[in-house]
């Protein structure tokens, strides 16, 4: 709105000029003659300016709406983060004291049972702080060969039980050229891609197919992990990126609910983005975009 105000300055200056001239007693007149035929062009020009102004204002309003929505989402995430940090912070001393206190007790079934529960709380705290760790971990940036990384992930997931009866196909382009290296932290990017492929294996059935594909697109390298697994209901697709959120259809599969939030945190720390497309019963595809 401030910039719109700037547009009024010439008008104000003109007004001041007229007032000064009138006050000085300037009563001279000027006559301008037009051919009537040109009036249509003038009217057209005025109308065009008006339409242009309206379009510009509406586009600006739309941009602002999008930006405030993005700000709201980012603010919500930051707020969540702070809440989790606070929770973690307030719980660590009591849990530490409980574990220490238990270790001072004589050995008994009751003490052992309590200790197991305290250990569970410890693990929960560990999980809660994992995203924070990733957000603060120091990256070691170097050129990363995405294809080699993808093939290493494929080899590593071979150790998972699920990989024995599902097929995993890895494809990277050769023509017109192989993928260019991206600048990033190879250890973290490995974790991100590993999490995606392991997820695809977890949420699929024997006989399902999983594909890990690499592509290059206009300054970005994209890595896509697609599966013919069970898919995610539309209403839960927005939740998958939130920590500890587990969909109603995933209760039968063990997990921390941290896999995808991890992936997103890692990719965003590399200046990239993630998106997910899924159809219930057909399968899921998750795409990572990394700047070259």
């Amino acid at each position: 709105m401030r910039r719109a105000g700037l547009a009024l300055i010439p008008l104000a200056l003109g007004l001041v000029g007229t007032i000064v001239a009138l006050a000085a007693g300037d009563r001279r007149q000027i006559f301008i003659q037009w051919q009537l035929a040109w009036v249509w062009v003038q009217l057209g020009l005025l109308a065009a300016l008006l339409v242009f102004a309206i379009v510009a204002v509406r586009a600006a309003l739309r941009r602002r709406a999008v930006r405030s929505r993005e700000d709201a989402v980012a603010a919500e995430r930051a707020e969540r983060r702070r809440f989790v940090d606070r929770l973690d912070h307030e719980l660590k001393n009591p849990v530490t004291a409980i574990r220490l206190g238990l270790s001072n007790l004589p050995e008994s079934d009751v003490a052992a049972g309590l200790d197991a529960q305290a250990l569970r709380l410890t693990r929960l705290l560990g999980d809660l702080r994992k995203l924070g760790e990733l957000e603060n971990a120091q990256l070691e940036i170097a050129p990363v060969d995405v294809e080699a990384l993808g093939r290493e992930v494929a080899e590593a997931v071979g150790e998972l039980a699920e990989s024995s009866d599902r097929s995993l196909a890895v494809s990277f382009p050769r023509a017109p050229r192989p993928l260019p290296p991206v600048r990033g932290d190879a250890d973290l990017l490995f974790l991100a891609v590993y999490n995606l492929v392991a997820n695809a294996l977890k949420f699929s059935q024997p006989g399902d197919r999983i594909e890990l594909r690499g592509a290059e697109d206009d300054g970005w390298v994209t890595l896509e992990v697609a599966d013919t697994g069970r898919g995610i209901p539309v209403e839960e697709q927005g939740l998958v990126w939130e920590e500890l959120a587990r969909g109603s259809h995933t209760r039968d599969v063990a997990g921390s609910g941290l896999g995808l939030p991890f992936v997103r945190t890692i990719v965003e720390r590399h200046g990239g983005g993630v998106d997910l497309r899924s159809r219930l019963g057909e399968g899921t595809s998750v795409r990572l975009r990394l700047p070259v």
Partner: protein
Amino acid sequence: MSITPPARPRVLLVDDESGIRDALAPFLARSGFDVLTAEDGGAGLEAVERHSPDLVVLDVLMPVLDGREVLRRLRRAGSQLPVILLTQVGESFERAAALEEGADDYLNKPFDPQELVARIRAILRRVTAGQPALGGSTGLSAGALRIDRVARRVWLDGVEATLTPRAFSLLDYLMTHPDEVLTRERLLAAVWGFDQPVASRAVDHRVAELRKVLADDSGTPLFIDTVQGVGYRFLHPVALTPATRA
């Protein structure tokens, strides 16, 4: 005349939470240590002066004078006193910084009490054998290998070698914990700042890089020994050397 029993190592515990002090002090006492407690950084420094403990367990997050500042003051005064930090959660870079500032080790709250005792013993083993603690050192050497912990540089047979930052941090952690079996998880948490089971291959990659640079054969290692199914151990005896300023 009675023979005095060998002195129990004296451990100073500094934590502002009485719940932690009250529970940890008797546990450490039962584990064979002579335990002193202090409830804030200032009292901790005073207790170091007055009672000269063998080791300090120091909480990072304390009001007024926090654990890191206490550590900094100790090291600035030239003290090599072994320090284990109980670090603030969720801030992994704090841990890396803590190790760089001269802590001998750190543990994340809530920690396993047995683990704390194991770490204390590992550090005191060196001290009681008459060897200096390594956490507060500026330079270390192991045979032909020498590192400057301040400038983060490495020399092998007097020739400077190039390491990636993470490989250096890994070598630094291995050398400051010689002869200890270090699990991949512990190395990940200390050097990488995140601790995910599938990331353990990252440790193997970096160890391979170190071995290549140090010309260390994994079959008959001089420096880094693989402990099958567990992790790694720095074999060579480590000595203090003054850091070389370029």
